[in-house]
């Protein structure tokens, strides 16, 4: 299968299939625009403008409002695990610059900063939140962009960003630990504490903040992969299962979501609907 690749959101974007140049350009422009609007590390991003405003009520762009609405829905659907109000917690943990520029330092991390989800209100394009609250929408922006990009490219078999993908035709996907699955349609995403982690005063920190503690999550799972109808839903579910720790597999099963969880010990747990876990009908008779 032909693929086109470039970098956005600090990761590799892959578009698979025989995709005309006009569709590729539309997808590329979408990623560039989203990166420009929602980056925490671009001084001119709308996210940083909103976060810097001292007003308690701020008018935001339609795109920003739409993305924040998705983030708030994701927060409710994930029982508060995927939380867009943890920007300060990320800074406190040491993720305060483009990841490639982070170096180990002896300074201990700042104090944990908890969720302020209840203080955020969105009415149309009017956002109300306590001044000083740092939003971080990256929990949903990348995967939502993947879904939207697939919609912009009817000829594409799949679109992937950092390995989180949306597909309308079969694509083989490799997972850590050697397993390969074939995504036929829908979304597949992986959340991991093994990537985007750094040392702070000798302690390992990573980008997945647990809203219950306001610090990098302590989970038995190094990596969780989930399949869902869209990349956004898969991504939210993967993050939630990882943050829920031992309760992650049960939470995925309760939602009927196929998931694969890899523990630090090397043990791999698959939910009931993951391929290979389903008992063939013939075997039941």
């Amino acid at each position, binding site marked *: 299968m032909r693929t086109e690749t470039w970098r956005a959101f600090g990761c590799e974007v892959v578009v698979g299939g025989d995709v005309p140049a006009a569709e590729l350009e539309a997808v590329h422009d979408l990623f560039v625009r989203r990166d420009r609007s929602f980056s925490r590390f671009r001084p001119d991003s709308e996210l940083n403008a909103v976060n810097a405003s001292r007003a308690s009520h701020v008018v935001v762009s339609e795109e920003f409002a739409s993305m924040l609405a998705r983030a708030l829905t994701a927060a*409710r659907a994930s029982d508060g695990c995927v939380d867009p109000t943890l920007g300060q917690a990320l800074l406190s943990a040491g993720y305060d610059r483009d990841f490639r520029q982070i170096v180990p330092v002896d300074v201990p991390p700042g104090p944990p900063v908890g969720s302020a989800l209840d203080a955020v209100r969105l009415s149309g394009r009017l956002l109300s939140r306590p001044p000083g609250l740092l939003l971080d929408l990256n929990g949903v922006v990348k995967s939502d962009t993947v879904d939207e990009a697939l919609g912009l490219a009817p000829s594409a078999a799949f679109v992937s960003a950092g390995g989180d993908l949306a597909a309308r035709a079969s694509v083989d996907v490799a997972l850590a630990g050697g397993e390969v699955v074939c995504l036929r349609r829908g979304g597949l995403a992986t959340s991991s504490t093994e990537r985007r982690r750094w040392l702070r005063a000798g302690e390992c920190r990573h980008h997945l903040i647990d809203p219950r503690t306001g610090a990098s999550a302590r989970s038995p799972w190094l990596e969780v992969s989930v399949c869902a109808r869209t990349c956004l839903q898969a991504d939210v579910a993967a993050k939630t299962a990882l943050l829920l720790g031992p309760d992650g597999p049960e939470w995925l099963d309760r939602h009927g979501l196929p998931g694969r969880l890899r523990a630090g010990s090397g043990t791999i747990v698959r939910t009931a609907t993951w391929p290979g876990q389903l008992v063939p009908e013939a075997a039941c008779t």
Partner: protein
Amino acid sequence: MTGDMSGSGARLDRPRQLARRAKTGAAVAALAAFVGAVPLVRATHRSHPRRTHSLLPPSDFLAVVSTDNFGAGDLAPGQAPPVVSSGGS
């Protein structure tokens, strides 16, 4: 006298009224410019915000997916999968 006072008062008040109106006008103009710069009102009329921002309700957000959405990979030895999903973002 009353009429004179009234007329005089009206004349005296007029600059204040004009100033007040000018202030109000400036405020309205400033507000109009602001709304024009960030077309909140027009956006509200153009497309209902709730519809623009609607997403599945949380209860349906993570609904069950069809189990035939994916299966075991069937790559031949030596073939590389086009995508590696390892939470690298």
